[in-house]
């Protein structure tokens, strides 16, 4: 109890994370036929994955508890549970392909960034797609009976076909993780080069958040490739040491997943919900600025932001309106908000807005060579 108090864990996310981890544990137990198909060599990975599941679920539930996140989460849930889902689902599928699979929005940000990210993302996802079923005991390979020249694949304890060891399928099965490793290393190296060249990234990046995940991914991939090299060309020399190093780096990566930058993988699908929300808002129409009359804010977003501002105790940001009533600050467009600052300053300087009070206004003795007064 004192440890929990020290960690300052929130009860609802804690419950959600515990349930998610239990559900995963149950899925592992079921899929591996009560643990019978679990590979003892992969138990370290399994424990780290369960921890990562707990951490990611905790952070996810804590994240959607934030008032602003809850606003979009609830809207997406409402859409999915309403008759509108029939209309929204095909669009969501298309958006998922565009935004999550192809990641086109990153391409629009920068083609170099997209190339590096695509290699990294798809290399990682490919790697996880192969290793997680193996770690969970959902997929396993054995020799086919007494025939050592054929491999038998098992899925959830059921036979799922066999193939000869010298076939193309066998080659792909045994080396798909090598391909993933090469993709990840290429993506990481390109990212590091881009980060080195980009002045903005260089100024704002942090080692623990931005560089450490890349270094860890390279370490995981390199040790994985070295296992293949040891087995292929070095007659298995140092295989046990390399296997330990690989396991160590993977476990470190898994333990860091909930805390670091890679958590964005779990957050990104929210973009699909937001795009649907924006499309529904466009259909409902935009409201006019109370200052200049320009249509600027989608009606649904105005309503939800109004509620959000109440929760955030910002609802007092209201102006008195001429002729009674009030104008919420949210009802002013960004341009009017900017002009309001200048107008307030001018009013403070001159008692009222002076349309011609540009410089020089104060006869300031400015000992500054670039000043117009100097």
């Amino acid at each position, binding site marked *: 109890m004192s440890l929990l108090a020290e960690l300052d864990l929130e009860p609802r996310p804690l419950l959600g994370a515990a349930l998610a981890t239990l559900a995963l544990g149950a899925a592992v137990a079921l899929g591996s036929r009560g643990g019978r198909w679990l590979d003892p060599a992969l138990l370290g990975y399994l424990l780290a994955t369960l921890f990562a599941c707990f951490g990611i679920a905790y952070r996810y539930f804590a994240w959607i508890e934030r008032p602003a996140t809850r606003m979009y989460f609830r809207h997406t849930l409402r859409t999915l549970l309403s008759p509108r889902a029939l209309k929204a689902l095909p669009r969501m599928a298309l958006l998922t392909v565009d935004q999550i699979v192809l990641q086109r929005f990153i391409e629009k940000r920068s083609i170099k960034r997209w190339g590096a990210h695509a290699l990294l993302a798809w290399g990682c996802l490919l790697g996880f797609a192969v290793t997680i079923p193996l770690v969970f005991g959902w997929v396993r390979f054995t020799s086919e009976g007494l025939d050592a020249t054929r491999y038998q694949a098992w899925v959830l304890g059921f036979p799922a076909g066999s193939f000869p060891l010298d076939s193309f399928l066998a080659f792909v099965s045994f080396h798909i993780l090598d391909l993933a490793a090469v993709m990840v290393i290429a993506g990481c190296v390109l990212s590091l080069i881009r980060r080195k060249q980009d002045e903005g990234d260089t*100024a704002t990046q942090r080692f623990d958040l931005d560089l450490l995940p890349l270094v860890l991914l390279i370490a995981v991939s390199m040790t994985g490739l070295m296992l293949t090299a040891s087995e292929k060309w070095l007659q298995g020399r140092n295989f046990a040491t390399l296997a330990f190093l690989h396991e160590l780096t993977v476990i470190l990566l898994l333990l860091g997943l909930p805390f670091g930058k890679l958590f964005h993988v779990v957050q*990104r699908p929210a973009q699909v919900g937001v795009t649907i929300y*924006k499309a529904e808002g466009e259909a409902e129409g935009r409201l006019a600025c109370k*200052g200049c009359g320009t249509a600027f804010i989608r009606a649904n977003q105005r309503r939800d932001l109004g509620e*959000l501002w109440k929760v955030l105790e910002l609802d007092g*940001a209201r102006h008195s309106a*001429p002729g009674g009533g009030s104008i919420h600050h949210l009802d002013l467009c960004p341009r009017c908000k900017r002009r309001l*600052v200048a107008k307030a300053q001018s009013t403070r300087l001159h008692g009222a807005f002076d349309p011609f009070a540009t410089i020089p206004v104060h006869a300031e003795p400015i000992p500054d060579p670039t000043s117009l007064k100097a």
Partner: protein
Amino acid sequence: MVPQDYGFFIDPQRCIGCRSCVGACAECGTHRGRSMIHLDEMDRFDSPQTVPTVCMHCEDPICAQVCPSDAIKRSEDGVVHAAQKPRCIGCQNCELSCPFGVPIVFSGLEQMLKCDLCYDRTSVGHKPMCATVCPSQALLFVRKDEVANLRHNKPLRDFLIGSVRVKTKNAIMVPDPETPLHLDAALLIDGGF
């Protein structure tokens, strides 16, 4: 880290609308090619007044409070950064909620960008691009103890919107900084533009 003894002092009254800041801003390394500074005309028919707006870098940024993906962070030196690229989902909450109308969400990129005080420059001891080129010094980045010698007016970092108080890192120049600057929409509506 941006040196804490330096400050950004904004005086819209001094702006001559030359747009140098707009061009220079696009040279900033953190958003190269895109200008984050806003230069608005108060009302072309009635006044030559132009309004340069950079981020005020609020102490408790509303943009960060309303961000669903927790993508907007304020560093220890008080600079509120553009949304983190891996997290921003382009919802526009920040753009619509900023009390000063600063952030810009680029649709298609699903990315919010904003003035980050030219962090690539200020964190290594240079001035922000806009302050470097502003000929009338409506945008002034100097040591805080120097500003009293350069201006009659004094820096104000305290704003009032209805009953909501917003405190900022950057300052607006006014004669009496003891009282918060009241951003009252009646100024826009009653006085027209």
